[in-house]
């Protein structure tokens, strides 16, 4: 499996410049924004919703929404701010998808996690080739804990423990105070601690 390598271009336009161009309807500006942030979003959302197809749909919708709301951004938006803004939209859509799936399961209308063919990007399925058997089993256990977890703690925990975002970044993306994000992460940590001890894996 190959991953596109994006080399930094000399004199590359800033996000603020690209946003300004995109607002004026410049297709090139939009495509550059997409190229700069789509891979990051797709990685993050695929792991969040554990589905490649689902993640593609969410990222597609994220940019459709972003193009509509682009004018609300200040033109001084820096690179990191644009990425955080896009992440907030993507995580919001992922949250909606996870809640809908949970509700369908509650009413017996959806498949259980793991039985669903669409769930092809669970953590255990994404394990690196050289990962040992016991580590794979741990990932399977984490998947099961996340399946039973509430949506908000699941998202916060994955952003922190899987993607490695700082607590402030998790709070910003989840649109909640850092203390709330911390509490949500701790909720999943505590469940994992029953098997792994606390912390489950090194922070």
């Amino acid at each position, binding site marked *: 499996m190959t991953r596109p390598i994006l080399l930094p271009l000399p004199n590359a336009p800033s996000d603020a410049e690209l946003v300004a161009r995109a607002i004026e309807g410049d297709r090139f500006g939009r495509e550059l924004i997409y190229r700069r942030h789509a891979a990051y979003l*797709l990685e993050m959302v695929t792991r969040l919703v554990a589905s490649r197809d689902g993640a593609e749909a969410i990222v597609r919708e994220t940019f459709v929404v972003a193009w509509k709301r682009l004018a609300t951004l200040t033109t001084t938006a820096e690179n990191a701010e644009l990425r955080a803004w896009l992440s907030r939209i993507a995580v919001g859509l992922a949250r909606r998808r996870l809640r809908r799936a949970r509700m369908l399961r509650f009413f017996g209308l959806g498949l259980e996690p793991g039985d669903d063919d669409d769930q092809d990007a669970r953590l255990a399925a994404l394990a*690196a080739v050289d990962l040992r058997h016991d580590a794979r089993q741990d990932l399977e256990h984490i998947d099961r804990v996340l399946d039973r977890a509430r949506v908000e703690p699941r998202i916060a925990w994955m952003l922190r423990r899987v*993607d490695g975002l700082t607590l402030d970044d998790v709070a910003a993306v989840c649109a909640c105070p850092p203390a709330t994000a911390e509490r949500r992460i701790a909720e999943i940590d505590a469940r994992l601690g029953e098997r792994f001890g606390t912390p489950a894996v090194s922070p």
Partner: protein
Amino acid sequence: MSELRYPLKERLHDVVTERALQRVWRGIDDRQRTRAPRRLARGLVLLAFAALAVAIGVVLGLALRTREPRPPRLADGRPFAAVDAATRAVIALDDGSAIRLWPGTRLEPADAELGTFGLRLARGEARFDMRGGGPRRWSVECGLATVEAVDAEFHCTRGAGRLRVSVERGTALARGAAVPEHMRWLGAGDSLELGETAKIE
């Protein structure tokens, strides 16, 4: 304790491919292009719903209107008209009701609210035998009082400055300034005489 360390993505393989990125970009492009037709389609759907709602409203309105009780007509289908009875006469109505008139009686149609069969006993003596049931109400103005009933048989005699109402079947309501307390329910066997002084039997 396994080899897992946070962040876990360090021990996961990459999930993004160039093909996936291109696929998503094409999807965004398609969504942008189809947005206008989708808006148009949404507008058409809303318009269709609005038209359907109006059509349902019209149909319901017509249905309710046709279900509204209409005043009875004469047995031959003609609308009721004023009658001056020189001899005893019986007016048969199309719903099975009958009005008996005594000689010298004048009975006229009167204005009434929707759903009410309005009559005026100008003079003389008449017996109203209502049949057919249903919500239709009869209202008979008899000078000193107006008698209202839904399904009843009652007799009115109107003379100069005098009125007698008696009920044979069902219940009737007599209203008027000359009626004691301006309103009186009369059951089968009850009668009411109004004149300079009212008398209830």
